C-alpha cells in the first residue's frame, strides 16, 4: 500500500519565557494509505504537538526540525482538503453563530468548488453518514442545540467533508461518556474504511487505541518509545514504559483493589 505520510526525524521546540522547551525529539514513522495508527501517551508526551506539526498548526515561534512529507501529493497539503482534524472539544471547532449546514457547506464550497445549493446537499449527505438523526433539520440547527456526542458527529462530518486522505482525531472521544465514546469510535472506523482514509488516533487510553488501531505508537517525554502492530504492543510490548501503561489499564477483568472480604 502506498505511503500517505512520512514523518522523519521530527523535532519541535516551543519558545517562551526566554527559554526553549523541546517537546518532540527525533520522531520518525510512516503512515500508509488506509492505515489506522494510534498515538498513545500521557500528558507532556508530545502527542498533541505531533498532530499540530503534521497539520501545520504549531504556534508561531515554534522551531521545527526534520520533515513531514506527503508522498502522494505534488503540492503542499491543504488543511480541510488533504487532512481533517477532530479535536477533543467539538465546541472549539464549531462556529457557535453559524448553522450546522452553513459550516459544513462552507468546507464543500471552499475545497470542492461546489455551489451553495450543491454544498448544502453534500452537507445533508454527510450528516446522514455520521448518523445524526434527521439530517435535514440538523442542517438548520446551531451547535448549542445539540448534545456533546452529536456536536462531535458534526465536527467529524466537517472534517471529512472534502474527503481528505488523512483524518486526525486528537482525544476526540475523551470528553464523552463511555457509551458515546464507543459509538464515535465505531463511526470513525466505518468512515475510514468507506473512504480509504488514513487515521491518526491520538489518545491517552491504550485499550481504546487497541480497539481501533492497526498499529500503536507509544510516546513519552516527546520521544517515540515504541511502535508496532496493535497485537504486538498489547501482547508482547518491548519497552518497560509500554508495559507500565498496560499494567495501569483498569479493565473489567482487573482485580478489585479492595480487600477480598469487602467485595465478596
Amino acid at each position, binding site marked *: 500500500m502506498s505511503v500517505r505520510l512520512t514523518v522523519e526525524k521530527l523535532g519541535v521546540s516551543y519558545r517562551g519565557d526566554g527559554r526553549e522547551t523541546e517537546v518532540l525529539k527525533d520522531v520518525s514513522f510512516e503512515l500508509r494509505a488506509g492505515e489506522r495508527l494510534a498515538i498513545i501517551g*500521557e*500528558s507532556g508526551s508530545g502527542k498533541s504537538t505531533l498532530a499540530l506539526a503534521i497539520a501545520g498548526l504549531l504556534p508561531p515561534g515554534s522551531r521545527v526540525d526534520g520533515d513531514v512529507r506527503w508522498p502522494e501529493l505534488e503540492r503542499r497539503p491543504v488543511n480541510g482538503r488533504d487532512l481533517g482534524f477532530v479535536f477533543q472539544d467539538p465546541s472549539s471547532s464549531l462556529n457557535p453563530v453559524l448553522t450546522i449546514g452553513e459550516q459544513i457547506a462552507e468546507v464543500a464550497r471552499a475545497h470542492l468548488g461546489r455551489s451553495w445549493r450543491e454544498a448544502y446537499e453534500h452537507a445533508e449527505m454527510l450528516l446522514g453518514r455520521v448518523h445524526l438523526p434527521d439530517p435535514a433539520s440538523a442542517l438548520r440547527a446551531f451547535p448549542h*442545540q445539540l*448534545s*456533546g*456526542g452529536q456536536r462531535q458527529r458534526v465536527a467529524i462530518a466537517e472534517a471529512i467533508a472534502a474527503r481528505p486522505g488523512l483524518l486526525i482525531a486528537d482525544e476526540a472521544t475523551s470528553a*464523552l*461518556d*463511555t*457509551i*458515546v*465514546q*464507543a459509538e464515535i469510535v465505531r463511526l470513525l472506523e466505518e468512515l475510514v474504511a468507506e473512504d480509504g482514509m488514513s487515521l491518526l488516533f491520538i489518545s*491517552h*487510553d*491504550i*485499550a*481504546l487505541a*487497541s*480497539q481501533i488501531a492497526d498499529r500503536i505508537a507509544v510516546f513519552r517525554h516527546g520521544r517515540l518509545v515504541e511502535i508496532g*502492530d*496493535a*497485537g504486538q504492543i*498489547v*501482547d508482547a510490548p518491548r519497552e518497560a514504559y509500554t508495559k*507500565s*501503561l*498496560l499494567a*495501569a*489499564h*483498569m*479493565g*473489567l477483568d*482487573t*482485580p*478489585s*483493589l*479492595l480487600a477480598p472480604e*469487602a*467485595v465478596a
Partner: protein
Amino acid sequence: MTAPLLAATNLRKRFDSRGRAVAALDDVSFEVAPGETLALVGPSGSGKTTAARALMRLTELDGGEICFDSEDLLALKGARLRAVRARLQMVFQDPRAAFNPRATVARVLDDPLRIHGIVPRAERPEAIAQLLQRVGLSPDLATRAIHEISGGQRQRVAIARAIATRPRLIVLDEAVSALDVSVRGQILELLLDLQRSQDIAYLFISHDLGVVRAIAHRVAIMDKGRIVETGKAAEVIANPQSSTGRALVAAAPKLRHGA
C-alpha cells in the same frame, strides 16, 4: 447491619431545557454505610452529578430527604450546616478549577483548618505538613503556588483539603478521570488507604466502569434521572441486568489481545 451514614430518599429535581422540563433526578434513593464506597455510574445527563451537588447543597432539590450522620441535611442552616459540611467533603474532576490558582498550597489547606476551627493558629503549619505527608506529598510543597505543581500533585492537595476537616463522607466527582493513568492508580491507592485508616465513606461518581470495579463496594447505575440497577460492584459489572448497565459494560474500553 449498621445504620447508614447517608440516606438519600426520593430525590427529585427538574430542570428547564429549551422550554421542556427535564427530570434530572426522578425519585432517586440510595444509602451509603460508614467506610463504604458507593459508585454512581451512568452516561452524561443521567443525573449523577446533580445527585452529588444536591448532597453538597449546591443544588436545591424539588423534593426528597437527605439524612446524613443522623441529621436532616436539607433542614440545616447557618452554623449547624457549616458544622455538617466539615464532615461532608467533595473532590472535583479538575483540581485546577477547584482552587484559586495563585494561592499557595499552605493557604489552600489552612482555610478549612481555620474556618472549621479545627487547629489553633500556632499549630496550623505543623498540621498542614502532616496533611501533605498523609497524601504522599513533601511538606516543602506548602510554599508553592497551586498553578506551579503537577496535576497529580494538585489532586493530592484537593484530597488533603477534603480530609483536613476529618470528614465521614467524601463525594468524588470524576476525581480521577483527568489524571494520567500512571498517577490514577496512586490516587486510588491513597483513597483506599485513607478509607481504611479513617473509616471514610465515598460517593464515587464516574462513567468509567474499570475504575469503579477497582474501588467501589457497591454500584448504582443511573440513566435519565433514575437508578436503574444497584448491587455489589463486581456482580453488577459481571452480570448487568439493566439495558444501561449492559451498554456501559459493552462500551468499556478493553485491551484487544491477539490482534
